[in-house]
């Protein structure tokens, strides 16, 4: 059982990264549907850097940078040229999938050494939970750390307040003298960086390979998670564990010989997403309490 739970935890890490990043971008009022593309760019760059330098920590760095740079392409169009965010985001996903395939072609079939586990002394010896919680790789710890940091930043800092203000009413924020586009650029870049980290986790930790489209829809699940979490950071953790759990559950169900068709089990994470979206839609006040009012709306300053 412990091994199963550990697998669930690892599966959740990329979702935590990507969803936390997207949450920040959305709280600033930008809907970036390009998460899948940014994750793929992160994954391929992490794999390439790790095989070139032979050091997975270089892979983490490269993944984060690649994610942020892909996000910058989005910013250029959606913020700089005020193009439609939905269309731009979709284009970014297609762009990222294609470019990562091209960049990654020479690396298909290769393999790298993944991240080592860093056990936290003393804590790791706590019975039952010790090994489950305190014997992971650096990125797993980082994902939780960043999530907590983001929660603190958004709710407890002045900069976080400004970011939320920009997301809720960009005109008011602009009138007050805040630089809307700059704030959004920062938020989108952070979102890309995190998506890149989430993507990097796949080849660095889950399986030491690169294969085209290896994120397999995790970017879309991360987007759904933000809605699932109703834009509250702490709920992302719950959602990510739930989705990770379902992903592993469908495999474990097969191993145990459940007589449900495996195709049906493979659909579970996506069905769960839809159910959650339906449930949320039923109680709009609750669900949308933290929804940024300017989400997806274009901002053009009249200078």
């Amino acid at each position, binding site marked *: 059982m412990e091994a199963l739970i550990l697998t669930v935890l690892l599966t959740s890490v990329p979702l935590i990264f990507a969803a936390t990043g997207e949450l920040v971008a959305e709280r600033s009022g930008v809907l970036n549907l390009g998460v899948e593309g940014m994750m793929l760019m992160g994954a391929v760059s992490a794999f390439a850097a790790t095989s070139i330098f032979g050091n997975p920590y270089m892979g983490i760095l490269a993944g984060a940078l690649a994610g942020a740079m892909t996000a910058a392409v989005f910013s250029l169009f959606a913020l700089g040229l005020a193009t439609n965010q939905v269309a731009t985001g979709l284009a970014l996903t297609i762009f990222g999938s294609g470019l990562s395939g091209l960049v990654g072609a020479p690396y298909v079939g*290769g*393999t790298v050494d993944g991240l080592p586990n860093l056990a936290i002394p003393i804590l790791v010896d706590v019975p039952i939970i010790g090994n489950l919680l305190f014997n992971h790789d650096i990125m797993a710890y980082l994902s939780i750390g960043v999530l907590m940091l983001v929660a603190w930043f958004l709710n407890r800092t002045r900069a976080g307040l400004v970011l939320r203000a920009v997301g809720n009413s960009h005109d008011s924020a602009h009138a007050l003298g805040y630089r809307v586009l700059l704030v959004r650029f920062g938020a989108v870049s952070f979102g890309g960086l995190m998506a890149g980290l989430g993507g990097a986790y796949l080849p660095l930790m889950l*399986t030491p390979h690169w294969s085209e489209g290896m994120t397999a829809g995790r970017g879309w699940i991360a987007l759904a998670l933000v809605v699932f979490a109703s834009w509250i950071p702490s709920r992302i953790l719950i959602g990510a564990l739930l989705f990770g759990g379902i992903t592993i559950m469908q495999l474990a169900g097969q191993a145990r010989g459940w007589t449900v068709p495996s195709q049906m089990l493979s659909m579970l994470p996506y069905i769960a997403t839809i159910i959650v979206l339906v449930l949320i839609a039923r109680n709009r006040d609750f669900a949308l309490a933290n929804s940024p009012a300017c989400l997806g709306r274009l901002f053009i300053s009249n200078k």
Partner: protein
Amino acid sequence: MKIKTNFSFAAVATLALSALVALTAVTVANAADRVKVGFVYLTTPGDHGWTYAHEVARLDVEKHFGKKVETTFVENVPEGPDSARVIRELAKQGNDIIFTTSFGYMDHTIKVAKEFPNVKFEHITGYKRSPNVATGNIRFYEGRYVQGVVAGLMTKSNKIGYLASFPIPEVIQGINAFGIGLRSVNPKAEVSVIWVNSWYDPVKEADAAKVHIAEGADILAQHTDSPAMLQTAEKAGVHGFGQSSDMKAFAPKAQLFSSVNNWGPYYIAKIQQMMDGKWSTGDGPDHWAGNTWVGMADDYLVLSPFENMPEDVAKAAAQAAADIKSGKNKIFTGPIKDNSGTVRVPAGKTLNDGELFTTLDYYVEGIKGKIPG
């Protein structure tokens, strides 16, 4: 003005025409001394797995025929309608014989073949044929029987984890042959099957392998292409079998052996037949697995060295392989019971090639669960 236009039109037309003539001449010259061979690959060849084995064979073809052949391949071709476009393109480019190297290209190969009656097609692992489509296959299940024997002797937990791709005849044959081999040496061991619904998905394969290990499996087998399962096994300290090509480099301590596909002799034989004007689709549409369906006896399926196992297990494996090669063990010989205990093949009867494709809609004893779909 008008004259000028006409003149330039004529000039362009003449140029185009002469270019066309020249091109045709080149093509004819080429066709005279070179056979063009096309290959359609499911993934990039990389350095392991299914497509890699085909790439090795393509290079064998080039080595064998030298300047008498010209080979072309298209990689990363999805198993859908897109494949028809690629196959058609290869036919249009003047390839004389085209090998489509994955099960999912079956219907598309048949369809395109109708449009190019003068081009020969060889579809790998399918069962549909037409006047210019032959099929070729390897008896992969023979290697899986030997895997079953080794797994049965090696397991301590009596739990075996199996990763499967799609519920097609070849995969079911493999699972059942594995089960028959397993139960021939160990009546208590059981196989859990996880369908990952993909030929190549390293993340999902690794996840599934982790789940198998978490559920207590100490031997893993796979009918998927990436080495992710073996790498996971290596990390967790359990054992497993490689697929399609020798995967020892990925898991030096975990790999017991790999079943290696050796397509070279088949490609060479079929191209030679074509050069001699003797190419045929074999024995008619009722010959299920096609005119080429051979295995360990002809070295189309090769087992890599038995490693990471005790001497006596390696001996038993070698014996099992020898008995299959000599024809002493036909594997699918009754009595065969399904996993609910019903006798499906009575004692003394051996399933023929057609029955291997049409009657195996059950798991044999020792395999848990049910075939999906």
